[in-house]
């Protein structure tokens, strides 16, 4: 699909859309933060620490979502040697990595007052840490390997192997006894989060998705400029 567009055109769209995405992100974030910090009620059991959830859960979802996209694109890169996808995956990974770290840190901050511990080596938390490490390996692979062809191959293999961990994260709380609670939002069955808390959670998820889109566009534009300056007509 991207082959049909000229590189100049793509760059024009991606650099122009950055500021619009930024404006929408600021609006959604403002609404989301007002909802989650002031308007939403406290929880019957954990009182105000429930507000950490509005950052923790969207961050975890976004980082898992980004890794899934990166893994699928990486299959395309590895098998079909698609020359355009690697710029997308390479630009997506930094925001996914940041969000996985945010999910771990906020979870830890929530865990101390709620569970009584900062960290537990249970299946959910450990598998989330593994996701972070895979992101880290992906980023490092681009730093370590100077030959681009090699870097593309190895980084996409890292993404594909790391994707095996994704279903483990999702189902860890069902397969094993974990300290982490089970899913509140189920694909089948009732959601066990009250609507007054579900709405801010949804808005914050949208804000986080927009933020990752924004970081992606900025990174993508940088990569495009780098290619232009090198005089490589890759796209």
């Amino acid at each position, binding site marked *: 699909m991207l082959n049909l567009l000229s590189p100049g055109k793509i760059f024009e769209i991606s650099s122009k859309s950055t500021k619009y995405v930024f404006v929408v992100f600021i609006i959604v974030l403002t609404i989301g933060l007002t909802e989650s910090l002031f308007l939403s*009620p*406290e*929880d*019957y*059991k*954990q009182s105000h620490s*429930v507000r950490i*959830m509005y950052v923790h859960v969207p961050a975890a979802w976004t980082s898992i979502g980004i890794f899934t996209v990166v893994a699928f694109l990486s*299959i395309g890169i*590895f*098998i*079909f040697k698609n020359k355009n996808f690697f710029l997308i995956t390479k630009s997506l990974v930094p925001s996914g990595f940041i969000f996985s770290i945010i999910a771990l840190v906020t979870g830890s901050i929530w865990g101390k*007052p*709620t*569970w*009584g*511990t900062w960290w*537990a*080596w*249970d*299946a959910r938390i450990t598998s989330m840490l593994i996701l972070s490490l895979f992101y880290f390996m992906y980023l490092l692979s681009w730093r370590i390997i100077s030959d681009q062809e090699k870097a593309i191959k190895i980084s996409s*293999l890292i993404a*594909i*192997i790391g994707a*095996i961990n994704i279903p*483990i994260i999702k189902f860890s709380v069902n397969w*094993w*006894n*974990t*300290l982490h*609670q*089970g*899913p*509140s939002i189920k694909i089948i069955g009732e959601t*066990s*989060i*009250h609507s*007054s*808390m579900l709405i801010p959670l949804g808005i914050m998820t949208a804000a986080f998705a927009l933020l990752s889109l924004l970081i992606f566009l900025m990174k993508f534009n940088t990569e495009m400029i780098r290619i232009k300056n090198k005089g490589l007509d890759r796209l």
Partner: protein
Amino acid sequence: MVKKVKLRIVFLLSLILSIVLSVYLILKALEKDVVYFLSPSDVKNLEKIASKKVRVGGMVKDKSIDINSDRINFVVTDFKNEINVSYSGSVPNLFSENKGVVVEGFLQDRNYLKAVKILAKHDENYMPPEVKEALGGK
């Protein structure tokens, strides 16, 4: 060219399959250690009581918390089996009757655990206090 694409597909499939199988086997073999805690029923079925630290999780039984001068005693239940727990120290804020708990400590026998650490387990329900009251909060 097409042949190379096919080879790459086969390579990727074998890679994924081999890793999935190894991960599965490792997790299956380590199932006892992957679980964060045992239920009181698991404790009942233990072949022998290990002298090392274990974690037992379940609900704090209704009206079972008994606070002495320096010890707190309570019962952890999974509604099939129960285990008595004795602990000395501070408990997390969310520790209360009819709520989830994970206790870490040493089993004295199949019915008695001396805890060294108590963690509160939070469930997946989130709601404002008014809603909880309307539901006849237990």
